[in-house]
C-alpha cells in the first residue's frame, strides 16, 4: 500500500468531489424509487407493474448505452448508479407482487449477484456494492437465529427447517464470504506494488466500512431483525461481544501486523472499532428499549472516535470519509423548523460571496450545495411513503441539476473573474 506522504501528494480534483455528490444524488433517486415501490400501488395490475419495471430498466440501460456512444462520462456513471438502485427496487417489487418473505439480507445478496456487471462500467459502484454485500452476508437470518434465509434457500432449495448440519454449512459459507472478501482485499493491498495506483483503493474500501457501520447504526430495520426482546445480564453481554468479535480481533491483528512488517498503512483498527461498536449496538438494543436515542447517538459517538483516530494519526483521506459520515448524520437528523432555515441560507449566501471574493471555487460550491441540502432537508418531513419517494426522487434530480450547473457555468464564472 502507499504511504501517507504519497497519499498526501495526490489531492483529489474539485470534479472528483462533485462526482461523489452526483453519486449521492443518484442514491437519493434510487432510494425514492424503492420508496415508490414500497408504497404498494394495489390498483395497478401486477403484470403492468412488473412489465413497467422491466421497461424502465431497458430505458435506463438504453440511456447508458447512448451516453457511452456520446462519451458523456459523468452522466453515464450517474445513470449506472440509478440503474443499480432500479435493480434493487425491482427486487423489492417482485417480493411485493409474489408475496415473498421480507428478507432484507436476501434482497441485498440477490442485488449483489445481479448488479455486478455495472462495475465494469462504473468501478466506483464498489461504494454501494460492498456495504450491501456485508449487510447481506452479516444479517442473513440463518446467522441470526438459524432460520432459513436467502443463502439456505439457494443452497437447500427453500426448505424452511434446516438441520444442524445445514445451519453449520450456511454459517461457514457466510464466514468464508465475509472474511474472504476482507482477507483477499487486505492481502492484495499488502503485496501490491507501490506504483500500482489501485492500492489506494483500500481507502475507498474502508470508507465503505465506515458508512456501512453508520448504516447499521441508523437503520431502523435492524429492529425487526432482532426478535429477542428479553433483558440480558451485563456479563452475558460482555461474553457475547467477546465471542462474536474474537475472530475479527484475531484476523485484524494478523493483517495489521503484516501491514506493519511491510511498512504500509492499515485501516484494520478502525474496522475493528466499527465491528465492536456494531455488536455493542445490537446487544444494547436487545437489552433495553431506547431505540430512537441509540439510533442517533451511537453512530455519532463512533464517528467522533473515528475522527479523533484520523486526526491523531494524520490520516487525511480517512478524515474526508469520516467528514462525509458526519455530513450524512447531520442531514439525517435535520429538524424541520423554518426558523432554522433562513439563518442557514443567509450563512450559505455570505459564505458563497466570501468564497467568490477569495477566489475559492471549491468553497463557493460547498456553500451553494449546503444551501440546496438545507432547503431539501426542510421538506424532508414527509410521513407518507409514496410522497417520500417523490420527494427523494425530486431531491436527487435537483441536486444533479445543481451540480451539473455548477460544473458547467462555474467555469464561465471563474474564467470571467480571472480575466478581470
Amino acid at each position, binding site marked *: 500500500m502507499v504511504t501517507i506522504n504519497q497519499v498526501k501528494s495526490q489531492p483529489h480534483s474539485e470534479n472528483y468531489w462533485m462526482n461523489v455528490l452526483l453519486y449521492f444524488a443518484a442514491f437519493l433517486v434510487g432510494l425514492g424509487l424503492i420508496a415508490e415501490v414500497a408504497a404498494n400501488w394495489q390498483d395497478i395490475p401486477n403484470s403492468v407493474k412488473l412489465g413497467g419495471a422491466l421497461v424502465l430498466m*431497458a430505458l435506463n440501460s438504453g440511456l447508458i448505452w447512448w451516453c457511452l456512444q456520446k462519451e458523456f462520462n459523468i452522466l453515464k456513471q450517474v445513470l449506472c448508479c440509478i440503474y443499480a438502485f432500479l435493480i434493487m427496487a425491482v427486487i423489492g417489487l417482485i417480493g*411485493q407482487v409474489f408475496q415473498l418473505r421480507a428478507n432484507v439480507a436476501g434482497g441485498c445478496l440477490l442485488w449483489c449477484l445481479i448488479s455486478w456487471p455495472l462495475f465494469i462500467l462504473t468501478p466506483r459502484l464498489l461504494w454501494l456494492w460492498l456495504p450491501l454485500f456485508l449487510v447481506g452476508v452479516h444479517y442473513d437470518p440463518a446467522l441470526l437465529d438459524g432460520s432459513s434465509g436467502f443463502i439456505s434457500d439457494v443452497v437447500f432449495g427453500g426448505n424452511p427447517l434446516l438441520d444442524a448440519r445445514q445451519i453449520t454449512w450456511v454459517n461457514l459459507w457466510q464466514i468464508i464470504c465475509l472474511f474472504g472478501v476482507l482477507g483477499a482485499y487486505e492481502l492484495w493491498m499488502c503485496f501490491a506494488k507501490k506504483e500500482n495506483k489501485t492500492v489506494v483503493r483500500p481507502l475507498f474500501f474502508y470508507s465503505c466500512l465506515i458508512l456501512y457501520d453508520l448504516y447499521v447504526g441508523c437503520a431502523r430495520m435492524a429492529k425487526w431483525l432482532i426478535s429477542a426482546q428479553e433483558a440480558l445480564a451485563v456479563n452475558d453481554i460482555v461474553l457475547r461481544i467477546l465471542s462474536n468479535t474474537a475472530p475479527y480481533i484475531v484476523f485484524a491483528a494478523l493483517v495489521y501486523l503484516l501491514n506493519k512488517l511491510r511498512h504500509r498503512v492499515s485501516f484494520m483498527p478502525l474496522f475493528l472499532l466499527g465491528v465492536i461498536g456494531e455488536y455493542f449496538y445490537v446487544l444494547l438494543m436487545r437489552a433495553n428499549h431506547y431505540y430512537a436515542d441509540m439510533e442517533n447517538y451511537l453512530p455519532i459517538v463512533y464517528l467522533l472516535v473515528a475522527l479523533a483516530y484520523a486526526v491523531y494519526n494524520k490520516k487525511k483521506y480517512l478524515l474526508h470519509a469520516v467528514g462525509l459520515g458526519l455530513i450524512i448524520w447531520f442531514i439525517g437528523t435535520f429538524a424541520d423548523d423554518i426558523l432554522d432555515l433562513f439563518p442557514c441560507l443567509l450563512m450559505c449566501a455570505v459564505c458563497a460571496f466570501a468564497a467568490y471574493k477569495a477566489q475559492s471555487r471549491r468553497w463557493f460550491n460547498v456553500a451553494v450545495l449546503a444551501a440546496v441540502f438545507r432547503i431539501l432537508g426542510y421538506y424532508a418531513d414527509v410521513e407518507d411513503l409514496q410522497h417520500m419517494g417523490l420527494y427523494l426522487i425530486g431531491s436527487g434530480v435537483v441536486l444533479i441539476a445543481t451540480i451539473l450547473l455548477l460544473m458547467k457555468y462555474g467555469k464561465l464564472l471563474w474564467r470571467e473573474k480571472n480575466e478581470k
Partner: protein
Amino acid sequence: MKNKIAILLVLPILVLGGYMLYLNAMTKFGRVEVVVQGYDPKDFLSGYYLYLRPDWNETDCTQFADGVCPQKEFDETFTFYIRREHSDKLTQQVNAGVVKLVFSYSPQHKPLIVDMLVDGKSYLEFVRQKK
C-alpha cells in the same frame, strides 16, 4: 467490446425477467387455504405488510394428501404486503381469526402465497367493500 457492454447491460433485465417468469410458474400449482394469526409491523424497504403465522390447529388438513398438514414444508411466519390505509382494518380481521392465506402448493416445492381471504372473500374485495 460494445456488444459485450450491451450484453452486460441487458443481463440484469434477463435475470430478473426470468425470475418473474419462474415465480409466475410457481403460482400455477393447486390451491390450499391455511388459517393464520398475526400482527402488523412496518418495513421501509418493502412497504407495509401483515406478519402472519399459520394456525395449524384451525386449518382443514383434508385438503392435503393423506389428510395430514405438511407443516414442515411451510415457513413458521409469512408476510403479506398491503396498503398502509388498509392495515388497521385487516389487522382487526386477523385478530378476529377470520383470515386465511391461499397458497399455490405442490409437494417438494416452496409454497407461494397467491391471495389472502377475509371471511372467504379475497382481501381486495373486502377492502373495496369497506371503503
